[in-house]
C-alpha cells in the first residue's frame, strides 16, 4: 500500500499564561492509502491536536515546535497558506464533534455543502448545486433538494452530522479526518454514523482517521489503532491485536471501561486523574495511575517496544523481556 500520511516526532506546544502545555509530545505514525486508523484516548490526551496539526488548524496559541508532517508527498509544515488552503477541504475532509456548533447557523445547509467546491474553484455553481444535492442524498438525507434551503437548526443532531460528512466528502478527499464524530449523538445514531462512514470509505476509496474515546466504535471499522494518553502514544498496532492482546496497562484500563451489553460486566473506572500537562510527571506519564509502576517508570520515559507484528507498546514492562 502507498503511504499517504507520515508524521514524525510531532511536538505541539500550547503557550498559556500558566506556562507551556505540551499537547503532543513527540508522536510518529504512518497512514496508508485506503487505511482506517483509529486514535483513541481520553479527552485532553492530545488526539485532536495531533490531527488538527495535519492541516495546521491549531488555535492561535498552539504551535508545532518540532517534527515533520508529510501528506501525499508534500511537506505540510513548509507549505504556504495558499497551498495549505488548497489541501484543506479538497484533499483532506474534516468532520467535527458537535455538528450543531460546527455548522454556521445563519447560512443555508446547501450553501455550506457547496462551499468547498466553490472555494476551490472545482466547478460552476450549478454543477456544485447538483453535486451537493447528490452528496446529501448519498449520506442519507431525504429530500435533499428541499433541505438544502434550510438552516442547520432545522436538522436533528444525526442529520446535522450527515451534513458535516457531506461537506467533508464533497470534494472527494484522499483523507477523511473524523474527530469524535459521534460523541454528541445518541447510541443508535452513533452506530448509523459509523456505518455511514464505513460505507462511504469503501465507496469513495479514501483513508480515514477516526478519533474517539470509545474503543468499542473502532473494533469493526478501524484497521489500526493508536492509544494516546497525556500527549503520548501508549500503544499502537492492528485493531485486533490491540483489542485482543493489549500490552499496555492503560489500554487494559480502557478496555475494562468499555460498556458491553452482551457480557454483564462491571465498569471499572480508572483510578486517579489525568496529569497536569503543564507540569507533567517525569518518566512514563501514566505511572501515577498505573498499578504496576516500577522505579524506572518514575524517571525514564519508555520508548515504543515491539510486542508483536506491527504492534508496539510504550511500557517498561514490555521492554524488560
Amino acid at each position, binding site marked *: 500500500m502507498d503511504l499517504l500520511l507520515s508524521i514524525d516526532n510531532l511536538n505541539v506546544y500550547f503557550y498559556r499564561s500558566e506556562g507551556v502545555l505540551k499537547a503532543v509530545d513527540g508522536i510518529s505514525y504512518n497512514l496508508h492509502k485506503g487505511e482506517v486508523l483509529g486514535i483513541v484516548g481520553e479527552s485532553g490526551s492530545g488526539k485532536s491536536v495531533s490531527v488538527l496539526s495535519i*492541516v495546521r*488548524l491549531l488555535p492561535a496559541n498552539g504551535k508545532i515546535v518540532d517534527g515533520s508532517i508529510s501528506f501525499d508527498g508534500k511537506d505540510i509544515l513548509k507549505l504556504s497558506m495558499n497551498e495549505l*488552503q*488548497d*489541501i*484543506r*477541504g*479538497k484533499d483532506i*475532509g*474534516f468532520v*467535527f464533534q*458537535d455538528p450543531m*456548533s*460546527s*455548522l*454556521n*447557523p*445563519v*447560512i*443555508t445547509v446547501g450553501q455550506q455543502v457547496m*462551499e*468547498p467546491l466553490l*472555494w*476551490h474553484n472545482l466547478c460552476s455553481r450549478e454543477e456544485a448545486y447538483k453535486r451537493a444535492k447528490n452528496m446529501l442524498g448519498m449520506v442519507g438525507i431525504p429530500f435533499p433538494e428541499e433541505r438544502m434551503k*434550510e*438552516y442547520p*437548526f*432545522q436538522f436533528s443532531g444525526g442529520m446535522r452530522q450527515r451534513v*458535516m460528512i457531506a*461537506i467533508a466528502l464533497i470534494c472527494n478527499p484522499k483523507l477523511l479526518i473524523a474527530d469524535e464524530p459521534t460523541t454528541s449523538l445518541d447510541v443508535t445514531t452513533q452506530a448509523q454514523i459509523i456505518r455511514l462512514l464505513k460505507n462511504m470509505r469503501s465507496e469513495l476509496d479514501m483513508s480515514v482517521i477516526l478519533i474517539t474515546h470509545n474503543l468499542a466504535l473502532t473494533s469493526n471499522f478501524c484497521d489500526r489503532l493508536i492509544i494516546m494518553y497525556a500527549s503520548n502514544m501508549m500503544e499502537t498496532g492492528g485493531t485486533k491485536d490491540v483489542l485482543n492482546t493489549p500490552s499496555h496497562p492503560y489500554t487494559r484500563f480502557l478496555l475494562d471501561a468499555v460498556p458491553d451489553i452482551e457480557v454483564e460486566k462491571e465498569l471499572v473506572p480508572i483510578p486517579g486523574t489525568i496529569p497536569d500537562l503543564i507540569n507533567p510527571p517525569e518518566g512514563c506519564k501514566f505511572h501515577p495511575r498505573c498499578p504496576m509502576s516500577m522505579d524506572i517508570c518514575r524517571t525514564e520515559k519508555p520508548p515504543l517496544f515491539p510486542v508483536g507484528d506491527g504492534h508496539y507498546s510504550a511500557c517498561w514492562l514490555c521492554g524488560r523481556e
Partner: protein
Amino acid sequence: MTQYIIKRIGWIIFNLLVLSLIAFILIKNVPGSFLELQILIGQAGTMGTGLTISEVEKVRGVETEMMKRWGEDVPLWQQYLTFIKGLVTLDMGPSFRWPTQTIEEIIANTFPVSFTIAILAVTIAIIIGIPLGVLAALKQNSWIDYLVSALVMVVSAIPNYVMAVFVIFLFSFWIPILPTYGWGQPKNYILPVLAMSFGPIGSIAGYMRTSLLDALKQDYIRTAWAKGGTERHVIFGHAMKNSLIPLVTILGPMISHLILGTVFVEGMFGVPGMGQYFSQAAGSRDYPLMMAQTVIFGLILMIMNLIVDIIYFFLDPRIRVSRR
C-alpha cells in the same frame, strides 16, 4: 410577518397607554407648578421689581385659559381622558413654556431635525466604527488593536458636549473652514453630526470587535477553515455575518438615544431639535410637553425596537423560520 407586526403595534399602543397613565400620575403629583416657577425663578430672580412675597402669593393658583385642561377643577381621570383624546386627535394644545406653539407643531418642527441628525451620526458611526472594530479584532493584541481599544475607551468616556468643543476648535479655529453655530445650510450639519458620532463610533467599534472575536472563536469558523476557506471566505462570508446580527440590537436604542439625548450638542451648534424643548419641560413643569415627551420617548424606543426586530427577522434565519 404582517400579523406579527400588527400584534406588535397593538402592544405598542397598549404600552403607551400604560406609560402615559403612569407618567400622568407621577407628573400630577410632583410638587411645583409652571406659573410658580416662572414667577419665582424666571422673574423674581432676575427682574422682580421689589416683588414681595404677598404679590407672588396672589399669582399662585391663578390659571390662564390654556392651563385649564390641566387644572384641578375637573377630576384627575377626566384630565387624563382629555389628554388621551388630545393624543389621539393630535390636538394636545399649547405647551406652557412655548405658549404660541402647540405640542404637535413643536414635534412636527423638531422631530425631522433630530431624526436626520441622529441617522446621519449613526451612519457615520457605522461606516467608521465597523471597519475599526473588524480591524482591531483581526489584529487582536497588536498595536492596531490597542490603539483602537484605547480610542474606543476615550471616545466613549468623553461626553458629547466636550466633543462638541473639540470639533469646534478643530474645524473652526485650527482649520477655520466651518462656522461654529447656525442652521439651514448643509455645512451646518457637519459639526453637530461629527460631535454626536464619536460616542457611537466608540461603542460600535468596541461592540464589533468583541462580537467578531467571539464569532471567530466559534466551531463553525474552524469548519470553514477546514473547508479550505481563505480569510475573505471565512471572515467576511462566515464570521461577519454572525457578528453583525447582534450589532443591530444596539443600533435601535442608540438611535433613539441620539434623537432625544442631544441637548448639549443642539445648544452648542444651534440645532433646532427636540432635545432642548424636552430637556426644559420637566424642570419648568410644562405638563403638556412633559406628557408628550414621555409618550414620544416611549414611542420612539418601541418603534426602534420593532424595526430592529424586523431587521433581525430578515438577518437571522433562526427567528425568521420559527416565526413563519
